[in-house]
């Protein structure tokens, strides 16, 4: 997290790609499509340089817990 209220997508994407089954990012994006669009974030275009609003990161964390029963580390 930063003082600007955002978190880099890089470690989050890396963790998801490493620890969760293939295409988990798409599943998470599908589940949270409305939240992504509300924040004007296009999940298909998220890359290592994207900054994600902290509120969205918390939702991602909850979704991972709900779908995969795993804890996204704090970044």
């Amino acid at each position, binding site marked *: 997290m930063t003082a600007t209220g955002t978190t880099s997508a890089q470690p989050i994407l890396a963790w998801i*790609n*490493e620890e969760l*089954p*293939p*295409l988990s990012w*798409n*599943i*998470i*994006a*599908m*589940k949270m*499509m*409305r939240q*992504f*669009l509300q924040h004007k974030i*296009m*999940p*298909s275009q998220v890359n290592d340089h994207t900054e994600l609003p902290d509120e969205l990161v918390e939702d991602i964390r909850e979704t991972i817990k709900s*779908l995969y029963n795993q804890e996204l580390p704090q970044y």
Partner: protein
Amino acid sequence: MKTLRGYFDYEKGLYNACDEPLVFHCHHYASFLLFSLESAREYVDIYPLMHDAAQEISYTQFSKFFTKNPDLTLEEKLEAIADYHAFSGYGKLEFEKVTIDEILVKSPHNFFSVGWLEKFGTKRPDDYPGASLMTTGFLSGIADLIFEKPLGSYQTEQLTCLSKGDDISSFKITPRAIRANLELTPSMGDIAEDGLKVINHPDSNVNYEGILKAFTEMPFDSEADTGLKNAFGVVLSRIYGNYFSAVSYRFLYEMEKVAGEEGVKIAEELLIEAGHVCSSFTLGGIMTSPEWYAMIKPTLETQKDWVHASVACLNALGFGYHEITEFIPNEKLVVRIHNAYESNYFVARYGQSERPIFFLQIGGLAALMNLVYVGKIEEKPSITAEFYDSFYKSKERFKGVQTKSRAHQDAFDEIMVVKA
């Protein structure tokens, strides 16, 4: 007992069961597809979408069967329906109560429920009551027919499900308050070519004709006590090609309505992944099976031959015939598909499209290259989730792209597989 069965139409490369195309799919495909769609359930009404697609198909197919067999009693019709459900590998059905106001059905073993359990374990308590969406719609279409009501008159609720920890899957079919506006399927669809013949490829020793014959003549009978087909390390079924096509395309249209281009992009990748995971496990299972080692392996000299042989197997699954038109080992594969079942459905139902329409086959052909060149299938690995993850996450993996499509004003369908 009168039974509904099909046949492999060698001149079209398709399996025809009373004018409905059937394709082999495994539990990985069905379960991953449901998992993907369910992730959108808060904004797309996926359960009616999946139910109704199956209702249209069973109604279309069995209306033809009953027309051909007009003297069947109600009891004989129910026998034929349960028999077909088991023949296809969807599992045994037991009709407990059959009245015009309510039908109760049990399915002690059900492909969709068992498949979910195998792949993902027990379904979460807050999930929809079951995993057997196709069976629910299937039963509704049957109820429409046996009570001589118009298509869309009945609906089915899954009461219990093996995937939720229940001892049995069970269903209740009742009349809808308002009839749903459903449509008949396009049956075999827009078949582009007839009189096809599989021939051997000049660059390979692989006996395409022999493999096609061997696989299409295998009985793939369901187990008598369960109505399931366990083969090659997966739970297999001869599923309606039009079902997964209808579900996939309708889902994409819904995603477009709700989330525009972004929703479609995310969903398309998941549909392709469903095909990739399906082929990886089913073809992976075939290519490590005793049957493969007895019949096919002795003829294979190079990794290239492994690719040819797996394409030859694909030809027997009811997806259409696959012809390799360009092949650079460990680099590029181009395959022309004759009478691809996804195209047959799409062109007949929707006509043309600006977007790709191949999902199962894009994922499936990429999986084939991944199995041979990344997964080193010739070393006979165990086909497990860990194996799958390891080659999926490899930097060397392949992906497929649609390069030509009859739904895109091309004369034929073609998929190219290259490094991701």
